[in-house]
């Protein structure tokens, strides 16, 4: 049987799967109450593949860790099992400590540039909120603490920022791709 030859399969094997042991170890340490990390890891893979299949991803590792972290947080919230303070610490620390900075060639990808310009076009607060939330992967709570503003302000600014980004996407013909 020949090996699967697709570029995507190669990318998955070379640039994604090597992060799995670190991701699992980090999830286990960070979220000890979630017994089984399989579902988190696989759902994060699925999301990464969907996104990669339709465009660029700045950093597979960061995407994977932040996505898995968000899924884990959702799960804990969903289960109403949150212990106070548990989720307020810098949950993103350790996520991005390894690996090189994003190569310029990646950052110049057209779709990433459009997303960057969309955020750059925002009013200051919206831009800061979306930068911390999306590029650094901070939660709403963490973002509020960083910016020294209330959580509901972060939420409101995030929603306004998202709406303006979508309007920017519409103006530039940036749409979901099959």
């Amino acid at each position, binding site marked *: 049987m020949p090996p699967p030859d697709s570029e995507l399969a190669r990318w998955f094997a070379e640039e994604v799967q090597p992060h799995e042991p670190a991701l699992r170890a980090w999830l286990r340490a960070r979220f000890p109450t979630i*017994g089984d990390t399989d579902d988190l890891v696989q759902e994060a893979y699925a999301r990464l593949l969907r996104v990669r299949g339709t465009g660029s991803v700045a950093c597979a590792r960061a995407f994977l860790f932040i996505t898995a972290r968000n899924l884990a947080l959702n799960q804990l919230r*969903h289960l109403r099992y949150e212990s106070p303070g548990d989720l307020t610490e810098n949950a993103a620390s350790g996520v991005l400590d390894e690996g090189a900075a994003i190569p310029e060639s990646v950052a110049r990808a057209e779709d990433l540039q459009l997303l960057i310009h969309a955020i750059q076009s925002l009013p200051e607060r919206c831009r800061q909120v979306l*930068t911390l939330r999306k590029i650094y992967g901070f939660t709403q709570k963490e973002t509020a603490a960083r910016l020294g503003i209330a959580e509901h302000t972060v939420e409101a600014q995030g929603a306004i920022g998202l709406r303006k980004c979508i309007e920017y996407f519409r103006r530039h013909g940036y749409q979901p*791709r099959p």
Partner: protein
Amino acid sequence: MNPLPQKSDPIEAATVWAVRHDRGLTAAEQDEFSQWLAADPGHRAAWAEARWGWDELDRLAGLQTSVHAPADPDLLLPRRRRWLAPVYRFALPALAAAAVLALGFVIFFARPAAKPADPLTAPRQLALIEQRTLPDGSTVELNRGAVIAEEFSDGLRRVRLLRGEAHFQVVRDPARPFVVEAAGVAVRAVGTAFNVRLETTAVEVLVTEGRVRVDDAVRGESLLAAAPAGEPPVLVAGQSARVDLAPTAVPQVAAISAAELEQRLAWMPRLLDFTNAPMPEIVAAFNRGNPVQLTLGDALLADMRLSATFRSDNVEGFVRLMESEFGLRAEWRGDEIVLRQAR
């Protein structure tokens, strides 16, 4: 939570909901959200667009000048164009595509109350079987842990099964073959339904409707033995093929009985509809298709009767409902959940 203002462009409300969803909805918000979504046909499209936009921004995750630099809220401040050299004119093709949002709905006759879970019974969440509609209208059910990637073009609908097991219900389109590739095995269909499972050392194909070809993905040659009359070899409904990934192995084709077929596809979720059904019957129905097994730890529970509708893979939802509405206590022991009366 403040009530949402009624705006003419639903994208405004939709973006508020997208951000709220990200941080997790309260039970009251969940209700409010469901009502908003149902209130106007345009709301669903706006919601899909808002969710898509929110997720698109995740492409930028990890984008920074130095991995050791502290988080900088002003990283993208336009004057700091360190490496973000502008400027492209964007001429992205205006391809319309429906953002298919997998919104799973669970139907409860009784809604679980917002009651904190007992930390001692710390449940883990079970992934649901994911149902996805592809851009051509074909549907896929992904077994727990399965990962697929779609690569659709004008002449070909290709889906790669990267891990796990999935069942495909394919919309007929002779001009655009539908091919599932798993570890170099290509399963080709025109209009049919079949199941593909990628194992460590083999790919297994099971046809539930119509017929498929099973080919070498690279060379395009069939992996099945040729049929007598020179017909291209196919696998038909009720047959399975097991392709060993060892280079010299010959695929094993076998007929599958109806009972076996049902058993092999037991992972696919069904809607379980109970009317005044005894608990042992309900538990047995869940246990048939799920790796996690429910057991009744109290003899008294055998007399309990219940009317409810669940997806067969939503064991966790069932257990939570039992805890919140029916005063039961769930004890999670690995792959077993024991239900008892709380006391």
